[in-house]
């Protein structure tokens, strides 16, 4: 009888140790002071900020370091027409990096517009998102300015990609889109 009791105690201790490991919560830490940062960690909760979170929008009107210039054309139909007619790429032919433009295009645009720009990306083929035009669409007649404006602000069902691509990357993508357009029109 006594031995049964002993076995039960050992089993219970074992079970309690094993049960502490649960996948929905993080494991124990040894000396957490070495693990947890004193400074703010990315995305952490904090009472010091509005909304109780560390992630905040930059102050209004702030410009990132480097040579980024504010984009002053407005997100309206007039702004779009203005960009279409007059906005030109600031990067010249020596700075154009087609392999990088293709890489970025395939990540951000190809999923809907298709890797050839015919509007037959994977999401379109699977009928998740429909009505993606081909780049040679005559009603739209896209130009480098209108492409940039659309990447920056989005258009109709397409959203803005300004926070996924920086200014120089956007212009690389614009150049690659024009190459695809030329290929389709051939």
């Amino acid at each position, binding site marked *: 009888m006594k031995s049964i009791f002993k076995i039960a105690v050992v089993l219970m201790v074992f079970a309690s140790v094993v049960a502490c490991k649960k996948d929905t919560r993080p494991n124990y830490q040894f000396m957490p002071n070495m693990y947890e940062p004193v400074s703010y960690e990315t995305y952490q*909760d904090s009472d010091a900020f509005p909304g109780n979170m560390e992630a905040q929008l930059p102050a209004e009107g702030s410009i990132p370091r480097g040579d980024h210039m504010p984009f002053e054309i407005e997100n309206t139909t007039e702004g779009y027409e203005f960009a279409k007619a007059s906005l030109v790429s600031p990067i010249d032919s020596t700075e154009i990096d087609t392999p990088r433009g293709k890489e970025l295009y*395939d990540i*951000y645009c190809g999923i809907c517009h298709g890797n050839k720009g015919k509007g037959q990306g994977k*999401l379109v083929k699977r009928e998740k998102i429909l*009505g*993606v035009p081909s780049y040679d*669409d005559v009603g739209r007649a896209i130009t480098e300015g209108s492409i940039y404006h659309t990447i920056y602000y989005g258009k109709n069902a397409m*959203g803005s990609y300004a926070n996924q691509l920086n200014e120089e990357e956007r212009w690389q993508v614009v150049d690659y889109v024009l190459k695809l357009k030329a290929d389709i029109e051939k």
Partner: protein
Amino acid sequence: MIQVIYRQLASKIPYLGLVILLTFSTSLTAQEGDPAKGKTLFNTNCAACHQLDKKTTGPALRNVEARLADEQGLDRTWLDAWIRNSAGMVKSGDAYANQIFNEYNGTAMTAFPQLTDQDISDILAYTAVDPCELNPQSSPDCPGYVQPTGGDNPDDEGGISNKLILGALAILFALLAIALVLVRKTLNRFAEEKGIDAVAKDKSLPIWKAFVQNQFLVLVTSIFFLLASAYFIYGYLSQIGVDQGYQPVQPIHFSHKIHAGDNGIDCKYCHSSARVSKTSGIPSLNICMNCHKSVYEYKGETTDKYSKEFYDGEIQKLYAAAGWSDADQKYTGDAKPVKWVRIHNLPDFAYFNHSQHVEVAGVQCQTCHGPVEEMEEVYQFAPLTMGWCINCHRETDVNVKDNAYYTKIHEELSKKYGVEKLTAAQMGGLECGKCHY
């Protein structure tokens, strides 16, 4: 006065001309449309902004031709003109064109001059098709609609019957066991009555006593037990602080399997900062909304646990968090952040930079994060221990090709180690200060 009247007349002549022209053109193009062709045309040209039964960027288009005629008294000529050049119609001062333009916040509809009259007829034929005719199951209002019956899933039935069989077997075995005990008891009683000693008493030593008396065996066993417990204690201690397999419940059930696996969206589409910064970044909700403005319901495969209603509910959670009103197709401005639970977290004393690994080294995301594209809920795949880091640095060859800037140092290091291929470790990937400072 007379002059003024003349001026108005003169300005009206082009309109009159347009009306006459369009009247004639319709009489030429009164053809039957083909709904099947219309569907393809609709999906390529119109579906970006229009759906049949739901207001999106533009109005819903079910039966648009009939509705326009009934409600506004506008005929096909008006529609043709609108489709081919809506901006021109708005400028010309057409009353209904301006009403629609203003109702949709001045969003100009793209002009479609390339659509022929036949194309437009096809599209209109597609919008006029009764959805019940194509598929009686499309809505409960259809006459041929059959209420879907529950439990028609064959897997379900299999599950239940399996459980039943197992339960019946368990009961059977319990009965057998009881029967055996009872039989033994009766037999013993018979034996006692007949005076036979059925249970022969064993006079030799019990095995445990024999074991205790053999000191050599006791020594070997205790050494074995000590070693085994040391092994387990070491294993237990060394997994403290290691979160491999950590799979928290997230506030919105975001399925990486659907997004990255089924739909093949690149990891860097959402986690774009992995290319350029230390952290790989949790995408902000505007990136979700880039697609989910259009994708408002789940149409893919479902299981018992994850039904269509479940996924649709999760999309609604996203709309609530982003402050998006699906009915009005507008942001209400009432957004609240989603408290995602962080899974991969290195201790503060170790430095790790995503861009260095993703952009410079070209390491696949899956090397460290595992098959995320197959995970319905993400868990931590790698242990993220120092041994794991170092192992990879020792084994990974550095890409020295097409890397002109570092040619010299690569050559020097290759000569120093006498190797053809350099590993990350030989490039200094094991130096303490690279990650701990």
